[in-house]
């Protein structure tokens, strides 16, 4: 996790923008509000869906401060009671704010609570804080870079204070196996189980009435999906998941990922297309007797060159694909 936190620094510097509002709200339509925390490594999305039977919140951020601010934004959006919270998965940035929604019934996939406690035990923030302190000391005071570093440092310190305060994450009230359907005031929420992809407890949430699909971290916009040969996500699993989502939610007008901009179904299709095209191109390379090094230099997918992480991830994906093939 420390490694992840440190390596995320580059991404942070390129993605986040410091600002005074820690949570911004953007309505997709009259019933769906997307809440975004802009502080931290990257922007984190949560959402609220208003129905005739009350409000359903999807994800609760990591700092209770963020969850409280999100709750205030929801209150500005609608005065209906918050009936349910759905945790898309068991990572800190999506579920540590659960306790703020204490009147709601919290729903997550099996073992979500257990995994949240594991997260708390696993994550150590002292090293990243030290790294940012060093960076802060050398950054030009008042520069944009310095502001971002200080913003990040502030976030990490607040998170660390929380972790050291005896904080215990609030587990879901209901943890379900397989899939489930939640019906509230005539609106149904399809809780689609994808199997472990990004975490052990991933679900996507589709709201057919609003035509909005919430994928959380199953999907990162403007990035090609990174996969692994030995650990999750495996490319075959990833393709299956994208296929499942495209089949079950193909009529979605909006796709809300866990981080980044609000997308459309075509963004999801592009991810599936990348995996399919890569597989076909690498199979061809393999069949024609190319070595891994040759494949890495020859196999490029033109349509995806503009993606933020293409340079960093595409070559690694080829290596992982090769590993799978060799086994």
């Amino acid at each position, binding site marked *: 996790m420390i490694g992840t936190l440190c390596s995320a620094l580059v991404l942070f510097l390129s993605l986040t923008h410091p600002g005074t509002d820690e949570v911004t709200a953007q309505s997709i339509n009259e019933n769906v509000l997307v809440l975004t925390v802009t502080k931290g490594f990257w922007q984190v999305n949560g959402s609220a869906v208003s129905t005739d039977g009350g409000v359903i919140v999807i994800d609760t951020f990591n700092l209770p401060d963020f969850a409280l601010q999100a709750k205030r934004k929801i209150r500005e959006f609608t005065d209906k009671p918050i009936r349910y919270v759905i945790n898309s998965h068991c990572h800190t940035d999506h579920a540590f704010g659960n306790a703020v929604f204490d009147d709601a019934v919290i*729903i997550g996939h099996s073992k979500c609570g257990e995994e949240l406690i594991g997260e708390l035990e696993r994550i150590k923030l002292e090293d990243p804080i030290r790294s940012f302190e060093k960076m802060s000391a050398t950054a030009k005071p008042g520069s944009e870079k310095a502001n971002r570093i200080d913003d990040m440092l502030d976030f990490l310190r607040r998170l660390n204070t929380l972790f050291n305060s005896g904080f215990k994450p609030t*587990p879901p*009230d209901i943890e*379900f196996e*397989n899939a*489930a359907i*939640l019906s509230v005031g005539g609106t149904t929420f399809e809780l689609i189980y994808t199997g472990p992809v990004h975490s052990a407890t991933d679900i996507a949430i589709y709201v057919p009435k609003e035509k909005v699909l919430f994928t959380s971290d199953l999907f990162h916009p403007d990035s090609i999906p990174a996969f692994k040969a030995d650990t999750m996500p495996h490319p075959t699993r990833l393709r299956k998941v994208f296929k499942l989502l495209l089949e079950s939610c193909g009529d979605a007008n909006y796709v809300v990922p866990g981080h980044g901009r609000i997308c459309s179904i075509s963004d999801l299709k592009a991810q599936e297309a990348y995996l399919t095209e890569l597989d076909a191109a690498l199979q061809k390379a393999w069949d024609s007797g190319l070595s891994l090094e040759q494949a890495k230099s020859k196999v490029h997918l033109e349509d995806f060159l503009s993606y933020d992480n293409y340079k960093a991830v595409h070559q690694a994906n080829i290596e992982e694909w090769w590993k799978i093939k060799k086994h």
Partner: protein
Amino acid sequence: MKYLFTISIALILSFVPATAQEITEHRLSDEVIVMEGRGGNMTVVETEAGLVVLDTFMTPASARKARKKIEAFSNKPIRYVINTHHHADHCFGNQVYSDAVIIGFKNFVERVQTRYGKDIIKAIKNQISELESKLDAAEAGSEDAKKIEGLLESSRQELDDFGDFVLTPPDLSLEGGATILLGGKTIKILHFGRGHTDTDLVIFVPEEGLLVMGDLLWNRRISYIDAVESDPLNWMRTLGELIKNCSSAKHVVPGHSHVSGIELLSTQRTYLENLWNAVKTARETGLTLEQAKQEIKLEQYKDYMYYDRGALQLSIENCWKIMERSSASN
């Protein structure tokens, strides 16, 4: 559809004597009660944070009576209701608990409508008309006429009890098991596939040693096996799984009648095995269905409730149909 409805409601009515409309309360522990009433058993589990109610009786009227008893038992809010399956006698009182989160298995509405039709009230009214015609045709004072009169009385009572009935499906429809954490108690909701129906949920509360079985378990009563909805073989497997995994259960609540211990699951499994094997043997030896219904006695169960009211014959017939369907599809 109408045929199915008639069968099922008539069955329920004939199996539920008018006296069963009164609710009898059994306290299993300081925090668990079971109420026997219209449509079988309702179980209530109290936790520090509220109550969990398992099943809701058959009509809004009976569910309201039960709610009064629950309120006398505890002043805590009812947080969750879980339906053990979609049969009327276990969930048609749901509307009385719509302030709680109602949990059931998927396809609830489809299953209810397939079984009872889309308009329950109209179906009861139709049934009353049918019974009235049958009564007109029956010889006055005959056994048949008495039976029909009994059913007619129950049906009219039914219509009264249904009153403002509104089909109230679960808020959360599961496609597998689930676990609820509430006020220091763990409510494990287990699903093992089709047994009594394909919406069966079993509820296990380890802290109380409580196992609530719905109609997967019958205590000294002939089990209701449905020709379309039941799968006796998987039902037996389910009982095996539960015997293995819930051996710490102290209080085992069947869908109807008295609470028992975990040993009742073995008794239930043996009953199903005996019945199933008897029907299977009858088919293998070339008996007709009618002959099988005559010849299979399973006398060791003759003291079971409904044995002498044609329930065993109905079970034989339904197992026969299930086997017939299974061999046709193989």
